[in-house]
């Protein structure tokens, strides 16, 4: 059975149930139950019409649950079947689900979980495993999220920016746990890009593809972090890079720049360099200028300082860094790198060791410790 194919049908089938009179929370539950039944019962011979099967079974699950509920609460619902809607409506439904799951009333963690379940068709167990939390915890998180949006009508227009941020969050978690969240984020962003013509959705998709292309060489087989400058560029995925660049160019052509397009442009410039030495740092600094203008983010300023250190020399980088809050994440690591390039290995080693103490992940901590160790064990003149 093709589970991927099945999962792609999930948002549309939720939409069908909602249009037949189910509320979102019950419809979503019913589709999950139908999915579980499909996984259990289809090992031998899957039905010909997956979508028809899923609608029929999910609707039955919904009716069963609603009847059980009605007998307690005597709630009126429309229970008779209505014509199955056409594809155009299904596309609309999927889009509305993206908006609902990224509703501003939800916390980022809830939005992420709900999106993966209602749009991505992942089971609660899979989502729990991906985020390394107990299944009961994830189940509660999803239930609470559904209660929060229970009053929201599915046909309200939403904000693409919130959806894009949720998908970005999913992608960034993509390297931990045992569900490939990066691949799932790309699938969901592709699906979204196919339904809505929005430059930042395209920008995000490009950004994801360009980073995903480097994924196999970002860590060594024993889990060590490999810095960009040391990555084996011959093993970058050229197909993903070509696709990412094309998606980005189409987005940029619309002349409505946004932060994800700017980030993707920076990733594209790195991807374009066959060797580290070929990197066009001057253009990268210009894109960081755009990013700072768009977001006013101190993290963008920090990254800009490092890029400036490559374009105009480490002194220029250190000067740019001097104006930034030392408490910023990776400030010490950036300072360490620039000091080493400026020919001050003693300060660099001290800063790498300091950076290791405030690292946000174990591979990062080990990498920074190793950098300090490398400098400390070098013979000094």
């Amino acid at each position, binding site marked *: 059975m093709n589970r991927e194919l099945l999962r792609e049908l999930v948002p549309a089938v939720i939409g069908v149930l909602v249009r037949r009179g189910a509320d979102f929370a019950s419809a979503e539950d019913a589709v999950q139950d139908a999915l579980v039944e499909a996984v259990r019962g289809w090992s031998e011979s899957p039905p010909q019409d997956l979508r028809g099967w899923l609608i029929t079974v999910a609707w039955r699950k919904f009716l069963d649950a609603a009847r059980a509920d009605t007998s307690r609460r005597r709630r009126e619902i429309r229970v008779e079947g209505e014509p199955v809607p056409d594809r155009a409506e299904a596309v609309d439904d999927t889009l509305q689900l993206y908006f609902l799951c990224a509703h501003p009333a939800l916390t980022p963690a809830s939005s992420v979980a709900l999106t993966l379940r209602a749009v991505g068709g992942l089971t609660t167990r899979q989502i729990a495993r991906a985020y390394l939390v107990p299944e009961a915890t994830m189940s509660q998180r999803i239930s609470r999220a559904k209660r929060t949006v229970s009053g929201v009508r599915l046909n309200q227009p939403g904000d693409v920016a919130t959806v894009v941020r949720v998908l970005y969050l999913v992608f960034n978690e993509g390297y931990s746990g045992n569900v490939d969240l990066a691949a799932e984020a790309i699938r969901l962003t592709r699906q979204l890009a196919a339904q809505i013509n929005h430059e930042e959705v395209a920008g995000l998709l490009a950004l994801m593809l360009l980073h995903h292309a480097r994924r196999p060489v970002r860590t060594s087989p*024993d*889990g*060590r972090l490999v810095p960009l400058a040391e990555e084996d560029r011959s093993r970058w995925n050229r197909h993903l890079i070509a696709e990412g660049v094309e998606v980005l160019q189409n987005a940029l052509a619309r002349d409505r720049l946004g932060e994800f397009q700017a980030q993707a442009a920076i990733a594209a410039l790195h991807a374009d360099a066959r060797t580290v030495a070929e990197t066009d740092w001057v253009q990268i600094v210009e894109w960081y200028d755009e990013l700072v203008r768009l977001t006013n983010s101190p993290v963008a300023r920090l990254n800009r300082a490092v890029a400036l250190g490559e374009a105009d020399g480490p002194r220029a980088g250190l000067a740019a860094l001097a104006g930034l809050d030392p408490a910023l994440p990776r400030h010490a690591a950036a300072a360490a790198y620039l000091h080493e390039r400026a020919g001050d290995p003693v300060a660099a*080693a001290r800063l*790498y*060791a300091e950076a*290791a*103490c*405030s*690292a*946000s992940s*174990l591979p990062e*901590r*080990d990498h920074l*410790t*190793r950098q*300090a*160790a*490398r400098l*400390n*064990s070098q013979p000094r003149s």
Partner: protein
Amino acid sequence: MAKYLLLKHYRGGPAPAVDWAPMDQWTPDEVDAHTRFMHDFGARLEETGELVDAQALSPDGAFVRYDGEGRPPVTDGPFVETKDLVAGWYVIDVDSWDRAVELAGELSAAPGPGGRPIHEWLEVRPFYGVPAAVPE
């Protein structure tokens, strides 16, 4: 089966058996050998069916306590003065206390400078179990 916590400390516990330099004073190869050992230790526990959880803690953070109605919690930290600082743990599910001690001994032999075992103290603590279904 019983669960045990193998607790690693940045500082604290009995006086160190060997007083090693901090890790940033090692050679890069020694750092690599140490991190690879940690990685392999977890993988091996998974293979034997004894691993429950492994986590590492950043040395950042603070102590926090309630400070009365309507007042924000009091914080004390970062842990500059703290004598004892937890670095991380393994939770294992093993047949016996002896097996827990054996594993802690292996973990304590993680390689340090010159590839020699660091003889690090590990704190081994039994979890409370559930009451037996068949009381004796």
